[in-house]
């Protein structure tokens, strides 16, 4: 049987993954037995060449090229892998950490620049939304009724007895200040520049 032999000097990547802020305190990557349950239930693996089992093997073998592998961008973040793992590993979480490593290196920014409008509207309004640049394609796919919904949303909300969903100015200022001091604004500008 093929086993993964961890060399003492070559576990930098797995160490970096485990010390990432996203890594859960009980993340069981060292317990992975390469059973493949994760890949067998993965919608990304079913539809694309993404293979969470192989991604975990490469992390354990300190293969840093996994960070640059386009396939890590095919994870659906559905965590089905996490829910069936017999070892307490969480391939979905590790995928998110690898993507952030790719973003930090610069390459990954190209993958997410198309979603930058989410950050802009969050800073402006304190609420999330589907990035505005996808609106046209959604209207094309869904129909003109979708545009009517967007135009009339405040009236519809009023009919339902709901107030405005946009935060009061003082609250937006608090959110903006937090996103300034957390480094998010600088991060977003960097992402946008990668166009």
């Amino acid at each position, binding site marked *: 049987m093929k086993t993964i032999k961890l060399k003492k000097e070559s576990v930098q990547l797995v160490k970096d993954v485990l010390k990432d802020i996203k890594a859960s305190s009980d993340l069981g990557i060292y317990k992975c037995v390469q059973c493949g349950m994760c890949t067998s239930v993965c919608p990304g693996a079913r539809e694309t060449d993404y293979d969470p089992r192989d991604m975990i093997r490469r992390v354990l073998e300190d293969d840093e090229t996994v960070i640059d592998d386009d396939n890590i961008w095919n994870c659906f973040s559905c965590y089905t892998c996490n829910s069936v793992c017999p070892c307490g590993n969480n391939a979905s979480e590790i995928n998110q950490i690898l993507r952030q490593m790719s973003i930090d290196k610069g390459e990954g920014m190209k993958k997410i620049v198309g979603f930058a409008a989410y950050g802009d509207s969050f800073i402006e309004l304190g609420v999330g939304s589907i990035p505005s640049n996808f609106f046209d394609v959604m209207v094309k796919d869904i129909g003109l009724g979708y545009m009517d919904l967007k135009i009339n949303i405040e009236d519809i909300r009023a009919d*339902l007895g*709901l107030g405005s969903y946009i935060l009061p100015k003082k609250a937006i200022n608090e959110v903006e200040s937090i996103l300034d001091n957390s480094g998010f604004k600088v991060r977003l500008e960097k992402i946008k520049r990668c166009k």
Partner: protein
Amino acid sequence: MKFIPDKDILLFKSCLVNVEYPGVESSTRYIFDRINVDYYVDERQSCCTGLGYYYDIFDQISTTALAARNFNIAQETGHKNIAVMCATCYTILKKSANILNQNEEAKNRVNEILYDSHLEKREYTQGDMDPILNIFHVAEIFFNKREEISSLVKVDLTGLRVATHHACHYCKVHYNDTIEGVRDPNLIDKLAEAVGVETIGWYDHKRVTCGAGFRQRFTNKEASLAVTAEKLQALKENKVDLLLHMCPNCQMQFDRYQPYIEEKLDTEFNIFHLNISQFIALAIGADPYKILGIQTHTVPIEPLLKRLNFSLKSNKKVDVEAKKSLN
């Protein structure tokens, strides 16, 4: 089973409920008002960042700092329990609470960000928010009060073939906290049962994702919709009339894209989509337009209501528009 509260609740606003299916919020409030749940909505609460987090635009520390602010708002108003209508809010808030409680370095960094933002009053102290005891999905609150819900049922919804879609971010992330099944999820099935409807229970693909996959819907559309189509096909094979949801993003994927997939595959699914809050509200007498907000749906709900012999005269203005969209 874990303790589920019915008071001191902050009903946490969701971005996709806000602008896609606001009727989920009005339905939730309608039910809460009738089963004596003490809740509050705070206009200062920011979004959880969930979509941006899974688009990989948001970094963990920014998401966690905003969560700390929202946790503080919940606490300062005496509503330490948070109830969410979106499964991604559920997982994001639990993740952030875990980080704040378990990772001292991250907690200190968040507090530093709050100080620098002149928000010292919102400082997070370890244990302020317990992810197990204080963060819930509204479906869990309904489940805890299901006997009261049963006693309020006014509308007979039997005769429909109903299936459920349990959101991944409720079932599969913090799965030790999930109630009524992870591998065979039944939380929404039991809520349907509480209003007198027996669902089809297990079906092939029951626990499969909706397919939205955050970025996948936009950057990998074919793969995303293939996953959705397979689930719709499994539901069609089971002759399902209505699929019940617990997450607005899943609901979007199915309701907004079902007609598109039908056209691409040259097939008809004819499946209606309602959130569990909308379904319970309907069963206990809520108006389809003024409370359920069915006017924001892409797959029209009117044919379903006609099958149930509903009178659709409650909102003439919207009713005319709805009829137009049916033609």
